[in-house]
């Protein structure tokens, strides 16, 4: 209640000229970004700290956000990379035994401009019909004429460079069974955690790490992480991956990692109209015919048909729009998926893929012996 009474006005200006008037939470100021929506009903803290959202203004379709507050355990990275955050209503009196803070304080601390009390369904429907669109959130009375050219000119560039780490970091499990190089394209913590939980010593390396550098680390497996932006922009990484694939070390890619791997092997990527963001995307494992509910966050996709048959085959497909959700390579020891088996937030149903990865590493190690 205090929210509506006391909230200062704030606005969303879309590239098509529409203005939504709501109220301000989080930081104040003006920010431009690509406006996207996510349909996940829980996991806002994971969303806010998922580096894949770099450069984007994220809209939550679920209207009540911040119910369980923010805690220090559920971060997917140390920072928040979203440009802006839009909700129907945020909760100023969260309730959960792990709750340490409100979402409002979190946004303020991370200098993220938030907007609430707008018709988020109308916004979602606009984005669905027109496709993702740039926009600006501002806590000032917007001068639309001045803002629009800036909004329209905005593009997310060099996204990976902004989110990747610059040095190698090592994370050891209690008992080491495997050694895995994790490419940090803006990785989610739970990818690392999923590996550590399975006995992997994880060496997190910068995005532009070369094949020689990887080889020098003597890994049993290579994990290509998720990350933000247009995959085709990352030409250096793509060419590095061409070499890395030749090492014969098992590779597992997720999200951007999946897209970069495909690009390195001669496939194309395309931008989806409004992407897949949420925790309810059905994905068919084409080998077993089973459908899994997955967590997703991506605006680009690998064009399945563009993958030369001798290079690899589509292993997973989206049950809704039939887009490519995974590739099994023949040209190299790699398999990749578009969705997020590490979940957080979202369903844990495809965590078995990490086991498939360790199985490949087992085989690799056996052969090496």
């Amino acid at each position, binding site marked *: 209640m205090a929210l509506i009474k006391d909230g200062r006005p704030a606005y969303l200006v879309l590239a098509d000229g529409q203005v939504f008037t709501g109220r301000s939470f989080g930081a104040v100021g003006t920010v431009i970004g690509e406006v996207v929506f996510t349909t996940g*009903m*829980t996991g806002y803290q994971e969303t806010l700290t998922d580096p894949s959202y770099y450069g984007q203004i994220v809209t939550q379709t679920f209207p009540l956000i911040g119910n369980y507050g923010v805690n220090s355990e559920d971060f997917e990275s140390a920072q928040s990379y979203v440009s802006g955050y839009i909700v129907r209503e945020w909760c100023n009196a969260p309730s959960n035994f792990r709750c340490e803070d409100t979402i409002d304080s979190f946004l303020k601390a991370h200098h993220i401009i938030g907007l609430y009390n707008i018709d988020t369904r109308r916004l979602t429907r606009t984005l669905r019909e027109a496709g993702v669109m740039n926009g600006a959130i501002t806590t000032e009375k917007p001068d639309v004429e001045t803002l629009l050219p800036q909004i329209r000119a905005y593009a997310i560039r060099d996204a990976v460079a902004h989110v990747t780490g610059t040095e190698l970091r090592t994370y050891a499990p209690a008992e080491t069974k495997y050694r895995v190089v994790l490419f940090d394209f803006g990785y989610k913590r739970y990818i690392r955690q999923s590996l550590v939980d399975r006995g992997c010593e994880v060496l997190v390396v910068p995005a532009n790490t070369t094949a020689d550098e990887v080889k020098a680390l003597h890994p049993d497996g290579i994990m290509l992480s998720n990350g933000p932006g247009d995959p085709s922009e990352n030409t250096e990484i793509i060419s590095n991956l061409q070499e890395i694939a030749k090492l014969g070390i098992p590779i597992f890619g997720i999200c951007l990692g999946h897209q970069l791997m495909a690009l390195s092997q001669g496939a194309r990527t395309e931008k989806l109209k409004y992407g897949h963001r949420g925790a309810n995307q059905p994905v068919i494992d084409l080998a077993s015919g089973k459908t899994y509910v997955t967590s997703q966050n991506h605006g680009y996709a690998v064009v399945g048909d563009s993958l030369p048959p001798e290079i690899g085959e589509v292993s997973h497909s989206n049950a*809704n729009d039939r887009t490519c959700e995974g590739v099994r390579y023949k040209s190299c020891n790699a398999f990749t998926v578009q969705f997020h088996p590490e979940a957080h937030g979202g369903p844990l149903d495809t965590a078995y893929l990490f086991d498939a990865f360790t199985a490949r590493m087992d085989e690799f190690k056996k052969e090496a012996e």
Partner: protein
Amino acid sequence: MGLRSDIRKVLVIGSGPIIIGQAAEFDYAGAQACRALKQEGLDVVLINSNPATIMTDKAMADKIYIEPLTLDVVKRVIEIEKPDSVLSTLGGQTGLTLSMQLAAEGFLESHNVKLLGADPETIHKAEDRQAFKDTMEKIGEPCIPSKVVETVEGAVDFAGEIGYPVIVRPAFTLGGTGGGIANNEEELRDISTNGLRLSPITQVLIEKCISGWKEIEFEVIRDRKGNVITVCSMENFDPVGVHTGDSIVIAPAVTLSDREYQMLRTASLNIISELKVEGGCNCQFALHPESMEYAVIEVNPRVSRSSALASKATGYPIAKVATKIAIGYTLDEIINQVTGKTYACFEPALDYVVIKFPKWAFDKFVYAKRTLGTQMKATGEVMAIGTSFEQAMMKAVRSTELGVDSMNMPKYEKMPVDELLTRLKNGVEDERSFQVYAALKKGVSVAELHEITMIDEWFLEKLRNLVELEEWLAEGDLTEEKYRTAKQYGYPDKTIERISGKKCPLHQNAVYKMVDTCAGEFKAETPYFYSTYDEENEAEQFIARRNSGKKKVIVFGSGPIRIGQGIEFDYCSVHCVWTLKELGYEAVICNNNPETVSTDFDTGDRLYFDPLTPEDVDNIIATEQPYGVVVQFGGQTAIKLTRHLADSGVRILGTSADNIDAAEDRERFDELLEQCGIPRPEGFTVMTTAEAVKVADQLGYPVLLRPSYVLGGQNMIIAHSEQDVVEYMDIITSHMIENPVLIDKYMMGTEVEVDAICDGKDFLIPGIMEHIERAGVHSGDSISIYPAQNLSQKVRDTIVEYTRRLSLALDVVGLVNIQYVVYRGEVYVIEVNPRSSRTVPYISKVTGIPMVDIATKVMFGATLKELGYESGLYPEGNYVAVKVPVFSFEKLQDVDTMLGPEMKSTGECLGIGRTFEDALLKGLVAAGYDLKREGGVLISVRDSEKREMIRIADKFSRMGFELYATSGTASYLNKNMIATNTVRKISEGSPNTLDLLESGKIHYMISTSAKGRMPARDSVRMRRKSVERSICSLTAVDTANALANVLRSGRSMDDVELVDITKI
């Protein structure tokens, strides 16, 4: 894949009469199942004893048996119809249990019938307490420390090990019947004795009490390929300790972080995978509020009340999908109807919240224990959809028709804070949310209320937001900002004006959002909407896009199921919609009950899931701009809207608002009767006790008393003496001095009921129904016979003539229900309701006259003649049909089972046969009467009925029953040469009537000594004891006599023919 090739003809078992714990949700599930099966081109055979349902309608199945749901009857249906399969999971616990018995006996196998939907192994693992525990242990899912016991001593021993309090859960009972929380050994002995008796396998589970933990449910679906999804999560406002059917529930779960949510979601999927359920399943969890510790409470491997709620909350049709899975499809093969392009193998995303609010019958059962616990007590529920919790809560409260328009309930507003807190500490009552709200308003902190109630602070804070809003509204000017904020939070204009004490500065109409299963991610064309205060009106866009050119007609539904207004009105609403579509109109439904067929989004052309109050319907009308509205099929809920709608210039289709009023307003009604030359029982209006006594004397006892402001028999009594009148008047005048009391001559005659259709010129009576119990027992609680058995031609002619006069005088267009009493050969009118009634579905089915369809057509100008009907009484059929009421007394502690002018039954069954005795036999068996042909009969009747008892007692005696009676009755019977044992009254010390009832010797009790409903009275205690002991208790001499006649006929269920009603 796809449809199994070995299935052609499927038997669907329904759930039977509406009782607490098993209500309209199974009509919704069953109707969806039947439709799904027919879509596949399969032959559908249906058995269900409940005539008020849509699923027993000719449109639903090829063969329909409205017969008792007993094992023998189902076997006979299988032998007659020779289905190749039986669908077991859509008929609630009743259908499931019957299917499992058939399978266990080998009957299905020997008749080459495949069991669809549930594997006996799965059911065993889910329902047998020990097997369930073992299964959970195997997959590492934690359970609550518990032990299955078969004796009271076993229960006491185990409770000693784990410590009190403990929960007692009887195995295989509906809605937790017979369960409870025991705080000490004495309570445990009581509850477990009862629970063991009620459990068909004499098992109860003794369980560590985890009251106060969060209660979370998941609805999950699995197919034979092993695909698993969750449809919806739900969180109970009331933590563990209150039955989920009695809890306020919010969907999706709101206080769980992703970590907790996914933990429980994964657990649900592990459970359903291990149980190998193929279809829908409900998993209930308790989650510790201060840790990640959780426990599986219960798993129901079938569709349920929760799955109906989840379906309506998300737009995902669980019952339909479960049916398709049962006949061979997999989730990835079933199209998501909502989007038309995606598949059923996904999880709905919501962009709103849903609140379910239970509806209890405590307004009728004044003396019932209102404490909520592990045994469900609600008769129905409402659902509300909103973009915030507060908005949904405000809508839910309006929808429940409690007489409040916000969380402010006057009696708690007035209550001192200490008393409120004491009430809250003493246990959970049905009105707890209002008590909490009043406490918040009086400044009690969220922390303190959480401490007392264990309701999560999140919910309490939301309620506090409403308190704050109301305070803001009350201070200073009512600005536009305040007004708009209040609208967003769900406040109607009138409420805003009352709270602020000021006129609204403007009026804002609601807009409508679509329920689309996907939070807007995909384009959907679901015609399913809810109101909110926002920018974009999707319903308006939808209507414009559709641009059908058809006229739009709104049908108002009947809201939550309650005593006196049940599923029959949903039957009528749905039929009206079907007919409207057939006539080329766009049919729009407004209703708020998630259990029903009417709120299935593919029933009407559009569904508005919203409260049925004046402002809420105004909003819908503003968006829809209908040609007209229909109020006569939605019970009193819809009728109540008539005046308001007419005043706002909305076209009321059918009987006019003015004529509806003429039938309801006593003075106008009296004038009308006089004008028609129709007598009614003489009566007067009085204000004081002295006047009442005088008038009663003048009329002659017995007299009927009721306050003038109530409808539907509430607070009505029959007074047999001056003492009764004085007692009643004292109670009434101490409560509401200003309201007059009506006193009518009570005519102890035969009650007769007629449903008619009138087109303004001609009228059609499909049949005359006669009640077994004489006037004084509410018509809904009477056994009703069609065709009437004991009326002379002259009386029939008079009834037909009076019906004609009344229909024409009231200018009825559509349905009218008239109740008559025949007293000493004269016909008197008791009541006229120009609307559909409880008996419409039943009489439609047994006469084959589609009453609602005809009534709807008549409303649009068709004449009965054009439709092929002669004016007058329709010729009688070859069958006798008997409607027998069903009660839920075992669920409601301290409620007197004595029948009277106030209705008490929750549902009904039909018995249909060649003779009256056969029909009644079936009806009684269907209603659960265990017609024992030997044993003891305990008789205790009031003096005025002793003489009549001679004849009845004699019948029992001659059949070999041993008779028992209290001293007065016994000596009277003995004097009349009927050998009767004398039993001591309760006050006379042990052994007395209670001990006798306890002894197991008594199979029937005839108890009519009615004097007040106080639980402490002897007669009430005896009747309660008989309920607890499952002894057949008859509280009207007429019922006792009829039952004696059935027994005397010597016929049993094996002797009577089963009837496929599609052939009538």
